[in-house]
């Protein structure tokens, strides 16, 4: 936070705008902390509170609008990409869409306070063809509430923030050590998972050209091409390999009953 205070004192509105915009488009930057700090700096007199509020609001809205239009243009593709980060992409898309359909307007009002939801809401509104005027109305209120709450808290409790800053100086080193250990453990885990599955990776891979050749041979009647994408079946203009069938990954137990064991099954996604 000491660094943040220094950055905001020196680069002020520009830094605040960058952090707020970055968080709005889903980058892991702490806009709340930046707003809190900017509010405190405004209380010291180095920034103007109303400008802090305005810059924060406009930056957030810019990021949200960008994601809204991306959702509008890409249909469900953008949400599909965001949902890949979740444990279950298929369920993520379905549940998000159904939830947002029921409570979309209210969600926009408090979404900013919930990590993850804040990034999902604007593209969902776009994908689900929410009217721009309606989106702006609710998203502006939500963003104003979020920016106002943190900036005002920083402004009102600027003295307390100074004390916290002093405390954080000593706690900072311990936090960095803990973060470093956590990051190292995570990287080690990912390497272990990668090596484990690489060693076990015995599924033959067939290039597209080779498969096309096989499909024109006598062996074609013995082949089955199966689309196992967890998403991609939501847009009316979705495409798949000609002649392929769909295997629903989340319903594998049922799907297996219909699969022939005497035929070669070629799986694909993306």
């Amino acid at each position, binding site marked *: 936070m000491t660094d943040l205070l220094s950055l905001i004192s020196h680069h002020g509105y520009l830094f605040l705008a960058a952090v707020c915009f970055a968080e709005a488009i889903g980058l892991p930057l702490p806009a709340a902390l930046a707003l809190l700090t900017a509010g405190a700096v405004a209380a010291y007199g180095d920034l103007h509170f109303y400008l802090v509020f305005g810059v924060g609001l406009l930056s957030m809205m810019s990021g949200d609008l960008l994601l809204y239009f991306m959702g509008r243009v890409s249909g*469900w593709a953008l949400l599909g990409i965001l949902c890949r980060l979740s444990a279950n992409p298929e369920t993520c*898309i*379905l549940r998000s*869409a*159904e939830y947002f*359909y029921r409570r*979309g307007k209210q969600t926009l009002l408090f979404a900013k306070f919930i990590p993850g939801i804040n990034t999902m809401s604007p593209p969902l509104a776009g*994908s*689900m*063809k*929410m*009217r721009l005027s*309606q989106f702006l109305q609710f998203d502006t209120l939500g963003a104003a509430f979020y920016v106002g709450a943190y900036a005002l808290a920083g402004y009102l409790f600027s003295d307390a923030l100074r004390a916290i800053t002093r405390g954080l100086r000593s706690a900072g080193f311990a936090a960095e050590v803990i973060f470093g250990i956590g990051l190292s453990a995570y990287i080690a885990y990912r390497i272990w998972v990668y090596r484990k599955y690489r060693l*076990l990776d*015995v*599924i*033959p*891979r*067939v*290039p*597209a*050209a080779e*498969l*096309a050749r096989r499909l024109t041979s006598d062996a074609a009647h013995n082949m089955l*091409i199966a*689309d*196992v*994408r967890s998403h991609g*079946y*939501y847009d*009316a*203009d*979705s*495409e*798949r*390999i*000609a*002649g392929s069938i*769909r*295997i629903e*990954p989340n319903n*594998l137990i049922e799907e*297996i009953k219909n*699969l022939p*064991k005497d*035929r*070669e*099954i*070629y*799986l*694909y*996604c*993306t």
Partner: protein
Amino acid sequence: MARELQQLGFKVFVIAGGLRAWRKAGNPVERVPDDDLVKLPTFS
């Protein structure tokens, strides 16, 4: 998923590069039939 099917005795292959590589190689694609589309709610 491929591994699961393989363990259950299916003869499984994976298309390298998936649909993107297939399309890029100029091979035929088709529109997903309406019956297979998952209908998600929209505001319009």
